[in-house]
């Protein structure tokens, strides 16, 4: 069994914070719609690392964080499938994946 005395919980939390911010930066700055979806996946993974770290360090007998992580993975899979389907149907109507051209809802 691995004991976690050597690595402090802050190390995991900082890795997940940096990963989350990289995801937000990519979400705001990408012009390719597929890259936006990838950034969302990065952010979901950052949240999962956070949940797993808390589950192992703070709630290490009941491990409810791991159950939450499994639900997040489920929802992320559904989100990726629907997001890419929306992207494909957008591409069929506009023949581009440039985020700047998806301004139908702009008034």
């Amino acid at each position: 069994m691995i004991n976690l005395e050597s690595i402090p919980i802050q190390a995991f939390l900082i890795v997940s914070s940096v990963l989350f911010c990289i995801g937000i930066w990519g979400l705001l700055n990408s012009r390719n719609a597929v890259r936006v979806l990838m950034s969302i996946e990065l952010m979901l993974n950052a949240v999962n690392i956070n949940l797993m770290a808390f589950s192992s360090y703070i709630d290490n007998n009941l491990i409810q964080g791991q159950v939450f992580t499994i639900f997040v993975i489920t929802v992320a899979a559904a989100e990726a499938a629907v997001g890419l389907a929306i992207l494909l149907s957008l591409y069929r109507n506009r023949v581009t994946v440039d985020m700047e051209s998806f301004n139908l809802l702009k008034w």
Partner: protein
Amino acid sequence: MSIAITTQFICFTILSLVILIGALGVVLLESIVYSAFLLGGVFMSVAGLYLLLNASFVAAAQVLVYVGAVNVLIIFAIMLVNKKEDLKPINDIKSRRIISTSICLTLLSLLIRVDLTNVWSLSSPENSIGEESTIRIGEHLFSDYLLPFEVASVLLLMAMIGAIVLARRDVMSKDISTGLPVNQELIEKSSEPLLTNKN
């Protein structure tokens, strides 16, 4: 089985570096295909971190769902929409970059400050469940998390139907082999792209 403390530290450092550098590559690289493969590497390294945290079941689920399903789906989407196009330049791109980068850095500093200053009430390692975590997850899923577990199956069914409806291609009006008209009552009619010419 126990791993030496130095080995744990080295594993954690390598996995974190792969995650962070890979994530930077995902958002910064010019080629979207390289980004997709780097994303697979990031998902694998996150699974490695889960193994380091004694969670073998979640690590396996991460590899199966993220690397095996989501990443492959993204690569297929890239294959379907991969058209070289010259993006129109944006006028205020510089100010946008500055604003978004400063927002991200502010959020990052806030999060790191919370991570470092908060006093986490760590539980003692004696009552850690360790490698029995798969058994405990099964107990949770069939007792106190039973309703979310069942709702998740409905959600997956709805996502599957929604994805099929949204991404369905227009079918041809004639059967290729027989030449007879195809019954299209339940199928979307073929149509031109609707919105191509509007700005």
